[in-house]
C-alpha cells in the first residue's frame, strides 16, 4: 500500500511550440557559447516578430558557458524574464526544456518562453570537457584509456549486440538512412553520401564502435518558443501542439550494463496521455549518439518489442520518403553534435516537420511526431531519458 496517492498528471491544454531556429553549425568556433546563444535569441525574435523584451521566460542549456549560468545571461542579452531556468543536461535537454517551459506557460508564470541550447567548440574544448564531465567520469572512467563516450558506449553496444543479436549492419542501416536525410538538410556538416560499405569498412574507434557510429562535436545552437495557442495565432506563427511527455532518470540501476533506458518505465503513460498508438506516428526523432542507442529507443518507446529493434530496422527504410521516417534532418550523426544543442536537434526538427516548414526533406502529411532525449553518461550508463509526442495544429 502506498502511503500517499500520486495525483494523475494534467494534460498540456493549449500549450504550443513554435519558431524553430537553428544557428548553422561549425566544426570549430573561435566564438563563445554566449555568442552562439545570442545568435539563437536574435533568430528567435526575428522569426517570431518579437522584441527581446517580449521573452518573459528564458531557459538555457549549455555545457560551455562557464563561468556564467542563465542568470548572467539575462544581463548579457538585456533580458528581464520572470521565469528563468538553466539545464545543462545534454541529450535530454530538449525534452526537459519543453516540459519545464510548457508548465510555466500553462500556469501563467510566463507568456513566451524562449528555450535555447547552444555550445561552442574550440579546438581543445571537447577534450577538456571529457576529463571533467562528471565526478564519476573523473574518478572512475576517464583514467581508463580516456576513450570518452566512445569507449563507454562501446561497452554498452558490445553487450547489447551479444544480448539481442543486433549486428553492425543494423546500426549501419540507420547511419546510412540518416545520411540520406542529411544530404537534403542545408545545415548538416556531413555533406558526402554514406554507403553501408563505407560504414562497415571505417576504422574502429573502440570496438564495436566504428568511425560512423560517432557524432562529430561542433559548435552551434538550436532554439524554439513555447506559448499558448492564442499567442501563436496572434503572432501569426505556425505551431505544433504538445500532447504528452515523459522523463525518467537513473532508471534500472539494477541492470549490470545498460540495455534499456528510463522510457520503458513510463512509456504507457506517454501514449495514454497523447491519446494515440505508436502506429499513428508520422516520424520519430531519436537521440542518436551511437545508433545502438537509437535501437534501444525504438524498443523502449514501444515501436517494437524489447530485443526486436534489429528486426524493426530490417523491416523499415527510415528515410524522409520511406517507412518510419527517422531523424529526418540527419540526426547528430550527420548534422553534428553541438553540445547541448544536440539534445534540441530532434525537437526543432519535429516542430518544422509538423508545421510543414522542413528545411530539408518534408515528411508528407506529418501529423504526429515522437521526439526522444537521452544522455548524461556520467559513469557507465546514460542517466537521463525523456520523450515527447507533438501533434500538428
Amino acid at each position: 500500500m502506498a502511503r500517499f496517492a500520486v495525483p494523475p498528471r494534467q494534460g498540456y491544454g493549449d500549450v504550443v511550440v513554435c519558431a524553430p531556429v537553428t544557428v548553422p553549425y561549425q566544426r570549430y568556433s573561435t566564438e563563445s557559447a554566449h555568442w552562439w546563444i545570442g545568435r539563437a535569441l536574435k533568430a528567435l525574435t526575428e522569426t517570431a516578430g518579437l522584441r527581446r523584451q517580449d521573452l518573459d521566460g528564458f531557459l538555457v542549456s549549455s555545457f560551455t558557458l562557464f563561468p556564467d549560468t542563465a542568470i548572467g545571461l539575462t544581463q548579457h542579452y538585456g533580458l528581464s524574464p520572470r521565469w528563468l531556468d538553466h539545464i545543462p543536461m545534454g541529450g535530454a535537454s530538449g525534452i526537459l526544456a519543453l516540459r519545464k517551459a510548457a508548465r510555466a506557460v500553462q500556469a501563467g508564470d510566463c507568456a513566451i518562453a524562449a528555450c535555447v541550447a547552444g555550445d561552442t567548440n574550440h579546438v581543445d574544448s571537447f577534450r577538456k570537457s571529457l576529463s571533467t564531465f562528471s565526478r564519476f567520469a573523473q574518478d572512475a572512467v576517464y583514467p581508463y584509456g580516456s576513450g570518452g563516450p566512445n569507449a563507454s558506449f562501446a561497452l554498452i553496444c558490445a553487450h547489447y549486440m551479444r544480448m539481442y543479436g543486433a549486428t553492425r549492419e543494423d546500426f549501419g542501416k540507420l547511419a546510412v538512412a540518416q545520411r540520406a536525410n542529411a544530404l537534403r538538410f542545408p545545415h548538416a556538416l556531413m555533406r558526402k553520401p554514406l554507403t553501408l560499405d563505407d560504414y562497415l569498412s571505417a576504422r574502429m574507434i573502440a570496438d564495436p564502435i566504428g568511425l560512423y557510429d560517432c557524432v562529430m562535436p561542433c559548435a552551434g545552437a538550436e532554439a524554439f518558443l513555447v506559448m499558448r495557442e492564442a499567442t501563436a495565432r496572434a503572432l501569426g506563427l505556425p505551431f505544433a501542439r504538445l500532447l504528452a511527455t515523459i522523463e525518467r532518470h537513473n532508471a534500472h540501476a539494477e541492470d549490470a550494463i545498460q540495455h534499456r533506458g528510463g522510457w520503458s518505465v513510463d512509456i504507457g503513460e506517454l501514449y495514454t496521455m497523447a491519446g494515440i498508438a505508436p502506429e499513428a506516428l508520422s516520424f520519430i526523432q531519436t537521440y542518436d549518439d551511437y545508433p545502438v542507442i537509437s535501437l534501444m529507443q525504438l524498443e523502449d518507446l514501444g515501436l517494437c518489442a524489447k530485443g526486436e529493434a534489429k528486426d524493426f530496422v530490417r523491416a523499415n527504410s527510415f528515410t524522409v520518403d520511406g517507412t518510419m521516417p527517422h531523424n529526418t534532418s540527419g540526426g547528430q550523426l550527420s548534422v553534428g553534435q553541438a553540445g547541448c544543442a544536440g539534445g534540441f536537434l530532434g525537437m526543432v526538427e519535429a516542430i518544422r516537420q509538423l508545421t510543414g516548414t522542413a528545411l530539408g526533406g518534408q515528411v508528407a502529411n506529418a501529423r504526429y511526431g515522437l521526439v526522444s532525449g537521452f544522455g548524461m553518461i556520467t559513469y557507465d550508463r546514460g542517466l537521463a531519458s525523456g520523450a515527447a509526442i507533438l501533434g500538428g495544429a
Partner: protein
Amino acid sequence: MTAPLPPPKRKNPLKRTRLPVSPPDLRSRQSHLLTRAAAEGRFGLPTCLDCGALHYPPRDACPHCLSSRIGMRECSALGTLAATTTVQISNNVYFRERSPWRVGLVTLDAGPGVVAHVHGDCADGGRVRLDWRLDRSGNATAFAVPDPPSPNMMDDPQMREMTLDPKHRRVLVTDGRTALGQAMAKALSDAGAALVFVGIAEAWKPFPGSERLSAMRGVEIMPLDMTDTDSVNDLADAIGARVDIIVNTGAHIRPGGLLERKGVTVAREELEAGYLALLRLAQGFGPVMRFRGADGANSACAWVNVFSIYAQMAWPAYGAWSAAQAAMLNASLSLRGELRPGGVRVVHVFTGPTEDEWFQPLPPPKVAAGQIASAVVDALRRGLEDVYVGDVAQDFRARLDLNPKALERELGQ
C-alpha cells in the same frame, strides 16, 4: 596468452628519449580511499558505515540509505567481465602513446560494476580478479586479471604499466656491505633484473659476504659512499642514465635517546647516513630517473627506501636514530611528489628491528634481511607504495591507526 617479454634491445643513443606524460590524475578526495588500498595492495570497496552496503564509484553519501558515513570494507575481488572494448583512439596523450588499450566493465560478485583496465588474457564474459593498482599518475585504478592467473601474466604491456617489475630492469642497491644489501642483490638478480649495481663504500675495507656478492649473476660492484657528495655524483655520472630502480637500504643504527648522548656527533652521523644520504642520492639520480620514466620496457620506474617503522613515531630507546629516520621519511615523501610527474614511484618499506648487531639486546621477533628483500621484490611486482614487513611493523601500523596517543605511551615504556 601473453608472450614473454624479450630483453629490451640496446638503446640507440641517437634516438630521442620519450618523455613521460601522466594518465589523467584528477580525483575526488573520496576516491583516495582506493589510492590508500592500492598503495598497500589491499582490495575493498567504499562502504556505508551505517547500513553496510558497498558502492562504486566512491560517493559522499550512501546510495542505499543516504548516510554520509563512508569508509572502506574489504570484499571479494572476484567478478565477471561483462563487456570489453579496446580503445584505438584516445583523447589523452599517455593512452595515445600506448594504444590500443583494453578496458571493460567488471560485475563484482560483491555487487557493484567497475570500469577497469583489462589484462590481455581475460576472456570476455570470463571470471576475473580485480586489483586496485596505482597507475603512472600515482592514483588507484581497477585492473582486471584472469582468475586463475595465466602464464607470463606480468609481461602484459598494460600490466607492466601498473607494476614496477624488476625483470629486465637495471637496479642500484646502495649499500652492499650490509646483510640487507646483499640479500637485496640476490633477490633482484633472481627476479630477472638485467643488472644489479651494488654500491660499496671504502672498498679496501673487507666485509662479510663480499665474495658471495661478487659472484652473483648480473651483479656489478660500484664504489659508492653515500656520506660523500662527490662519490654519489661520480656514480650518478657513470651509471645514472642506466638505473631503472634504486633500492636504498642504507642505515646507520645507534641506540640511545636524547639525554644519554653527549653532544651531536653520533646524531650528525645518523643524519649523514640517512637523511643527507637520501638528499645526495636524490640530487644525483632523481632528475635523470624522472626524465626516463617512459623510456621503453626498461624505463626508470621505482625508488625504494627501506625505513625503520620508528620513522613514523619515535622509539625513545633509539630516539636520536628515530629522528634521523623521520627526517629521511619526510624527505622521501617530497621525493615521491617530485618523481611522480615522471611516473617513477617512491616505495616506502617499513620494518621492525632487524637481525642487526646494533639491535642485538632486543628480543624477537626481528626481521631477517631475506624477508625484507622478498617484500621489496613483491612490492615492485605489485606496484605497491607502502609496505610493512614483519609482525612488529604490521602491529605498529595497526596500533597507530587505532590510537596514536596510546602507541606513543606504549613506545615510551
